[in-house]
């Protein structure tokens, strides 16, 4: 095992060296660093060209310049010595500074999208696998491929046009016309028609219910002015909490495990009490506090589950702990919604909350909730855009993997033993279906830092992709090499991690030392 890892790491270093050499030469050959001066008729043109030549050391041939760069970069290997020198950009800014900042922006931009795409994609994949060749399966497959094949710059511009500009216009006069209510109802009806299981009659009943719920909800929200003053209220939280309790119990232990169900429901009750109790505390929230509260919530849930006891305490603890976490999330959402009117009427926002560019509103002053909402309004559209296009791969992979597992002999055995369908799917099939996805997710985390060049450009995020492309356009080799170094290292490391994780998760795969 250790020999294997060492061998892989040595190869990785060699690959990195060779690749960085090639990238350096390509960058140097890609443009004319003096182009901007050639068109100039400034009297000191020669002097400016001379300054640039010295700055970029252009008198030294590119292959030799590479080794100068490598010498500085090698200093980064010495830990804590502060000898790291990745050079400066043409504008005299340290590349290390640029990289740290760009990585922060990129992580901010893609993390939520990646997590959501993984969660939703896998869920969709599993569900469609369980209902193979149904209307739902075809519907989800169609949508996934549709989004997958849309060019992101186009999706992004459309999202900005309707999701930001159009929605902000709507918020200034939030009136939903009857025809819109009916259209939304029909969409709901269609979705429920696909989701409903069984014969045509049941499907049509489902469609009817879907229509009523969608149209009714939108009418209710409009009539109560919810779009301007959103919130769940205690009643809403109680309803959502009970739904969460039932859903979580169904997935973790099955509704027949009454102890687990009661544990989850008790947690919801405690959550409601907490909802009122911690409001004053939440006014002073900081990220650390929210984190501690989340841990506390999970612990309380687990304790409730433990105290409920029963023949299988762990099931109750799981159900109650997860319920408590989700309940806490709902309370958090509600608190954000309470801050919405204040955010909306802020003089920096001027009643147009959904943003099209950047990651924050300049000079916005406010507490945790206001700045949280500001991040949300800025990340909403890019997250949707990135998520839509990456849903396809996750849902298709997990669908294929789940289908394969469901046809395995041990699943038939499990059914023959008389296990419930829930146990078969959740415990025997689902976990094994996730193994191939581990590789995919590991790669994607590696690629995540590399940035999303086009999305960053459209949403004016100054992440890794933009750092790379702007430096390349300016024929500025140091930032390009910095980005390459980071993304290259991450790609190689996560490749290795993916292989190792795979062998840990699946004992059938053994690493040959």
């Amino acid at each position, binding site marked *: 095992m250790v020999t294997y890892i060492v061998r892989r790491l040595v190869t990785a270093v060699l690959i990195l060296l060779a690749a960085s050499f090639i990238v350096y030469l390509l960058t140097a050959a890609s*443009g004319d660093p003096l182009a901007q001066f050639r068109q100039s008729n*400034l009297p000191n043109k020669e002097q400016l060209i001379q300054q*640039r030549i010295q700055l970029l050391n252009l008198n030294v041939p590119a292959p030799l310049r590479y080794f100068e760069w490598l010498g500085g970069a090698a200093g980064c290997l010495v830990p804590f010595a502060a000898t790291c020198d990745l050079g400066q950009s*043409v*504008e*005299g800014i340290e590349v290390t500074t640029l990289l740290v*900042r760009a990585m922060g922006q990129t992580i901010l931009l893609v993390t939520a999208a990646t997590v959501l795409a993984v969660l939703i994609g896998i869920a969709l994949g599993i569900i469609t696998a369980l209902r193979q060749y149904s209307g739902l399966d075809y519907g989800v497959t169609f949508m996934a491929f549709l989004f997958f094949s849309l060019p992101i710059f186009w999706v992004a511009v459309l999202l900005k046009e309707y999701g930001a500009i159009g929605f902000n216009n709507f918020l200034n006069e939030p009136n939903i016309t009857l025809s819109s209510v009916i259209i939304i109802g029909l969409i709901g009806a269609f979705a429920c028609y696909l989701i409903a299981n069984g014969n045509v009659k049941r499907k049509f009943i489902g469609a009817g219910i879907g229509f009523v719920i969608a149209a009714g909800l939108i009418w209710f929200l409009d009539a109560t002015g919810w779009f301007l003053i959103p919130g769940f209220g205690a009643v809403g939280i109680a309803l959502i909490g009970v739904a969460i309790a039932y859903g979580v119990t169904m997935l973790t232990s099955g509704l027949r495990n009454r102890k687990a169900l009661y544990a989850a429901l008790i947690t919801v009750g405690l959550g409601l009490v907490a909802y009122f109790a911690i409001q004053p505390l939440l006014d002073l929230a*900081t990220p650390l506090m929210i984190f501690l509260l989340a841990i506390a919530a999970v612990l309380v849930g687990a304790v409730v589950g433990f105290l409920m006891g029963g023949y299988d305490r762990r099931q109750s603890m799981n159900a109650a702990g997860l319920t408590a976490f989700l309940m806490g999330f709902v309370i958090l959402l509600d608190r954000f919604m309470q801050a919405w009117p204040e955010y909306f009427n802020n003089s920096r926002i001027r009643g147009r909350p959904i943003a099209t560019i950047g990651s924050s509103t300049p000079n916005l002053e406010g*507490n945790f909730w206001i700045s949280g909402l500001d991040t949300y309004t800025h990340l909403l559209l890019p997250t949707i855009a990135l998520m839509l296009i990456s849903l396809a791969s996750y849902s298709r992979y997990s669908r294929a993997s789940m289908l394969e597992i469901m046809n395995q002999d041990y699943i038939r055995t499990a059914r023959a033993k008389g296990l419930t369908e829930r146990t078969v799917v959740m415990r025997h099939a689902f976990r094994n279906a996730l193994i191939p996805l581990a590789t995919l997710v590991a790669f994607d985390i590696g690629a995540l830092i590399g940035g999303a060049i086009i999305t960053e450009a459209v949403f004016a995020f*100054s992440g890794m992709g933009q750092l790379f492309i702007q430096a390349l356009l300016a024929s500025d080799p140091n930032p390009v090499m910095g980005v390459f170094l980071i993304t290259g290292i991450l790609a190689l490391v996560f490749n290795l991690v993916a292989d190792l994780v795979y062998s840990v998760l699946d004992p059938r795969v053994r690493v040959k030392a």
Partner: protein
Amino acid sequence: MRFGRTSKAVGAAAIAALALSACASTDGGGEGDGTGGSTQASGGGAVTVAEVNGFSSFNANSATGNVDINGKIWYMTHGSFNYITNDLKVVPREGFGSYEKVSDDPLTVKYTINEGVKWSDGNAIDAGDLMLAWAVQSGHFDDATTDDAGEVTSGNTYFAYAGTTTGLGLTDVPEISDDGRSITMTYSEPYADWEIAYDVGLPAHVVAEGAGLADEQALTDLIMSSPEGDPENPQERPELKKVADYWNTAFDTTSLPSNPGLYLSSGPFVTDSMVADQSMTLVRNEEYNWGPEPKLDEITVRYIPEAPAQVQALQNGEVDIIAPQPAADTLESLEGINGIQLLTGNQLSFDHLDLNYSGVFKDVDVRKAFMNTIPRDAIVNSTVKQINPDAVPRDSHIFDIGTDGYEAAVPVNGSEDWQKVDIEKAKELLDGATPEVRIMYNADNPNRVDAYTLIAESAEQAGFKVVDGGLPNAEWGAALGNGTYDATIFGWISEGVGVSGVPQLYGCDSASNFSGFCNEEAQKAMDELILTLDPQRQQELQIIVDTKLFETGYGLPLFQGPGIQAADERVEGFKYMSNQTGVFWNFWEWSIAE
């Protein structure tokens, strides 16, 4: 020790409560503190401007900081002896200081800062600051020798100044007046662009401190006492080197420096906050007392590289003013937005077709035959007119459209002979010959490709054999003047003011004269031009050069690049500007309509 279950739980709860209250925020809750910056209270309003590039330096005059956006921020945060209006006239800022030509021969100029003009830290702007600016802009101490490859073989170039040192290089160490607010510099020979050759730069007391000198006076003394740099006998000057290094690098930053001295302001606004690579915000400078009071309280600049993103940000109210890269589809989408002011005009760049004075074009008749075939109207229609409906072919090699000089030059410079395509005349001049012409241009620039296509088509009708010599973006610039082509289409960017750019382009053997133009009369005029102080005479001399260029078949100017600038309709006082200061040129006149 043993604890019961209950006491354990109580203990855990107590610790948790402590931990939670310890990490609570201290700003006293969310009630009503989200009303934005306090500066907005005074009611002048705030404007957000979109810029293509990110800010990178508070020293816009250094080699690394010399980027448009840095110059724009500099413009709003620095006083100056003069500024340039949108009809490209130099206007003195009398409230800041004054400059007067004390004598014509030798050219002697006296610069005075008005009493009470201060940096934003309260330190007076005085002769120390003027002397530092002079030391930088004159290159007085440089003693570097470079070899043919551009390697420095001995000595030092101290300040990496991005402007020209040609003008102030002619001056000797200035004299400081007794009141310490004026300096007087004497030129060893007349210098035509003296009026824009010099301006105040960075605060001397900050640079002195940063370079480890005692105070501003020590820096002034250092500048006064150091001998002029002599490349023959370079000497080590460690103190001056420290000053120069600090000046060259200390002001480069993309986040707000912890040392406020690095972003001192002498103008109406001062930097308040910066978010690296995203935005920066300027607020009123409390110490500003010498010029027109800005109507706004705050100007925020956000960096948005993509033109469509700028347009949508304007539409969504996130920015109030944009100046995107000009393109026909950008204009189209802006035209579809209600409630904005949309301005188009010329920029100070112009495309031109240059013919070599050698090879196939050695004969003036061949050159003129080719010029007769150039369809300038068609080129303008298919390129810049898509963006700027008022675009017309440019009729002068030297003057920018809209300036007084242009009006005076066009009727007399001979450009009227080249208004229309005249294939017959071209054929006549060619007299049956079918010369092969290789045209070099940037094949990655759609406007140049269009121009080439139209020119090639038209020239072939007259009997020319046109060879496509288009080169990719990375290569065409280096190919200029290397003799591999007969004609070239490319662009110059001009400053809009000043005359020293003229000999740079059209002087015999000068650095940017790629086509080999060399005319005795024109050269004589240019030699006189750079020594001429009278603006009227400068114009006459430039017209002589312009006329000679047309007369000898230099080629033809095609068009000036178009520009698009747009603003939300609530911004008042927004006016089009063609030079690199862009929309900011009259920022103090901007206001927000109620």
